[in-house]
């Protein structure tokens, strides 16, 4: 546990998010409090519909909470306007997607360079950084290849390099191994672990216990609330947590939330 004195890298308080209105409204998040320390690797787990993706979207400034606040290194960003959120996404967060989301018409190197291009920055400033990142993810020899010429694991490593280009304060990964075979998945996870060991802060959503086991800490989400929290590294305990039945009927939780 991080001490109360130091400013957390990422902090969320009382996050709520509902979709739709009236009777058909869905409450995806019902008051989530979360702190991620600097250089910490946090995994978020939970069954589908638990709200873990919604939480990640809000943490990554892709979406806004209905209620509650988010801050990064003490700076609030839930109340920022679109323009500021856009800047935040480009400069402060690095996002990794389940389906890689590489642009199919761009080469590996160009995809890595993309965040600089979309920010309108001169590519020359990032030329060396791109080379270094491709070498870091072990794809120097694939720089000029198109995504369609690469395996899934390679594509995800390009995506990681892309997320790191502008030295984000927090790396956010949404099921980064969800679309990979186990070997490629292990490779990607090893890479993430190494990045955190070298000082990167990272938050990962996953439903894969083995993946979560590599994290420093795992929080479990159920019905839009944090249900439990354990340190990482203990694969057996993670599996146990995942298979625990709900503590209370859903109706009760809903009434509590209200």
């Amino acid at each position, binding site marked *: 546990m991080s001490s109360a004195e130091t400013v957390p890298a990422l902090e969320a308080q009382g996050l709520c998010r509902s979709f739709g209105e009236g009777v058909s409204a869905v409450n995806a998040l019902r008051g989530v409090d979360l702190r991620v320390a600097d250089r910490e690797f946090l995994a978020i787990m939970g069954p589908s519909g638990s709200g873990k993706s919604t939480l990640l979207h809000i943490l990554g400034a*892709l979406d806004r909470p209905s209620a509650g606040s988010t801050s990064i290194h003490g700076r609030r960003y839930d109340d920022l306007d679109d323009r500021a959120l856009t800047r935040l996404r480009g400069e402060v967060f690095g996002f990794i997607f389940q389906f890689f989301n590489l642009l199919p*018409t761009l080469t590996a190197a*160009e995809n890595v*360079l993309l965040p600089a291009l*979309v920010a309108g920055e001169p590519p020359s400033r*990032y030329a060396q950084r791109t080379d270094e990142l*491709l070498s870091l993810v072990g794809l120097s020899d694939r720089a000029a290849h198109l995504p369609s010429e690469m395996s899934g694991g390679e594509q995800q490593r390009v995506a990681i390099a892309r997320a790191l280009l502008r030295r984000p304060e927090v790396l956010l990964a*949404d099921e980064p191994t969800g679309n990979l075979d186990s070997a490629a998945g292990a490779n990607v996870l090893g890479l993430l672990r190494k990045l955190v060991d070298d000082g990167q802060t990272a938050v990962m959503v996953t439903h894969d216990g083995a993946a979560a086991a590599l994290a420093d800490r795992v929080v479990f989400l159920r019905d839009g609330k944090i249900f439990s929290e354990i340190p990482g590294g203990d694969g057996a305990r993670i599996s146990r947590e995942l298979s625990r039945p709900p503590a209370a009927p859903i109706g009760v939780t809903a009434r509590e939330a209200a």
Partner: protein
Amino acid sequence: MSGRRRPAGARVSSLTGLSLRSLRARPLRSVLTAGAIVLGVGMMFGVLLLVGTIHSTFGQLFDSIYGKTDVVVSGRQSAGALPASTIQRVRAVPGVKAASGSIASIFRILDSSGKAGRTASAQVYVVGVDVSQPEMSSAENVAGHAPVEGTDEIRLDRDWAAEHNLSVGSSLRVSTPTGVRALRVSGLYTFPGGLNLGGYGTGEMAIGDARRIMDKPATWDEISVQANAGVRPETLRSRISAALGRGVEVATPATKSQESQEQLASLDVILYFFSGIALFVGGFLILNSFNMTVLQRMREIGTLRALGAPPRRVARTILIEGVLLALVGSVFGLALGAGLASLLLRAMKSFGMPVAGVHYSLGAGIAAVAAGVLATLLGAAWPAFKAGRVAPVRALIGGGEKPHVTSARRAIVGLVLFVPSMAAGGLLWFGNQSNDPLVGIGATASTMVMFVGMVLLAPFVVLPLVRLMAAPLQRAMPAEGRLAADAARTSPGRTAATAATLLISLSVVVVNATVASSFVGSVEREIDSAFSRDLTVQPIGYQEAGGPQPGLSTRLRDQIAALPQTGVVASRRSLFVHNLPGGGSQGVLVGYDPYQYRRVDKVQYTGAPLQEVLRGLAQGGVVPAKSYAQQRNLHVGGRLRLEGPSGVRSAPIVGIAETLELGGQVVQMSLGTIASVYGMHTDSQLVVKASSPAARGALTQRVNALLEKEYPGLEALSQAEFKKHTTDLINQQFSFFNAIVGIAVLVGVLGIINTLSMSVLERTREIGVLRALGASRWRIRRTMANESLLISLAGTLSGIIAGLAIAVVWILGMRATSFPEMSMYLPVSLLVTIAVLGVVIGVLAAILPARRAAKLQPLAALRYE
């Protein structure tokens, strides 16, 4: 930091590179979208070149004939003739150094068998000038000498002479108003600035010979004046003007030239409008195409947004794609336009308009490309805006909701745009006869707004039509029909937008054709009911509302009158003017002997009893046609001020003529009135009635024999031929405009191909399943063809419906305002042709996408994500 511009393996250095890549990734769509720009820019450029050529031809003409002239004296806008005495009055004005009068006519060259050529290059504009006066044009003698009085000599333009193998001393056999003449070529000249009238020749004769041969004994068509040294042309112009009074136009060559250019302006606007339709439809195709691209690339765009791309930058990548396409398309469009221009010029020439070879100008190219880029940017603007607004979350969830296209709000906005702009468009196009280009611009603007309204309303017509037609299709081909109908229905927005491109272009064609056929039908009805003449004698290719015409000699009238089979010969003298008396619109002044003409044609008069009208006309009264009277609020008992180069008078309105001739833009008067006011002493047409119906055949034979022998430049038309001649002129004009709109229909075809190929892409998985279940390639092709047919038929039928609806409203409006005698006649054969065309387009448009779909391997199709 590194000195290198790009990292290894990267070639793009900005988002422009990304735009270029994404265009390359969708070659078919890029080609089709650029194709729309090629067609739009091509037609725009073609028409701009056409307009430029017309203007430069007239500019050259004025520069050449007034090369050494300071002031020109003529009838208003060169209509009518001046009395012979005017030249003395001009010479008496202080500051006039020299004044040289001229008369003009058109001769036709005869071939070895004595037949007159019907082409433009068989015609030569001949002016008769006083050769003792100084040269007023910029012509320079290059061979021989000026024509000598009393020798029937002619001096010719060197290029035209060369084309006809004529040189100094040759004999030129021509048909003239007074019959066949052999003229001796006395010399050749050229204009240093060059003058190309698209085949027409020019020539010059001595005034005495010209007066005799042209049968213009005592008038001047024009007087050219040179000023004394030190007298400014403008000063001299006002002095002469003050000396000659009203009805005479005194102008400097510069204002004369400008005036002629201004008269062309309203034609220019109409041409720009029709050529602009292709670009409008092209812009709409671009809108549709980019909408599809944005929808398809939702995940990619979401990713850009998630990586921190601001909306502006995302929108810009889409706009850059558009600009890249527009620039590439424009290059090809310019090439196409150069070809179209020469086709358009050929059509223009066939209407008897003198135009030179294509006059290329950089300005026209820039304007066409600018219009193409603008249309593209307007088309891409909305998709770009939407792309900028894509939520970053789309990077993860992909897709995007399909917009609801039949919302009540859309219907209301569509109607609010459509109804008033349709009314305004009809009023501005047909509700008045103004030749003010501003009216044309207003009409264009309101029609464009009307098109936008039609685009918005399109789903409400197209989608029910698709449903309606899907039913029989499914009965005929249960499997393919069902799949095709589903496909067309699952993306209603796309289906409606695609059909709308056809809807707009075809509705314009239908409106054009319906208005034309209503004009033609109404004119035919009038000819059938009111014209009881047997023959109309007139120059070959005669147009009442055209440029200068050779007149008919009094001798010919006497010759025909002397034939035993002739009952009556009545003269008609027509003068095309840019400003009819009492108003600002162009039209024709018609002179005839009321009693004599009455015995040939039974034109209805209203406002007064027949005998009073005839007596009034004979005594100097005027009779406006009903349309003109209604537009200008003219009534029997009122007066019209007639101001011609030979006289000015206030004439009583003695009746209203029920005639649709020349769209009812006519003021009729007696032969005496048109002669004394406008100096018209020669006949334009002779209308002949046989002494009895039995003599009709013999009369026709005798007149034709006379014309063939002595006046090969004239023709005698039977009632049926006259009707055809009249209606051909109307049809020709509308067909010319429809040909220009036709290119917009082609853009619509590209739109269907575009949409179908998108449909193939979207349904790759479905097609794979069908193939895996054993569907033949042929069956897959048929499914695609059916979808194509549904869209194209819905487009063509809704185009016909919309076109007819607009035409009905406009024609009813015309009946109530400008053309009370007009009735509605449907262009049935054209409507059927369009419907058949719809099927053909549907089948043709499916060929490429259907091949693509049929080629899909079942497994590859299933793997597609």
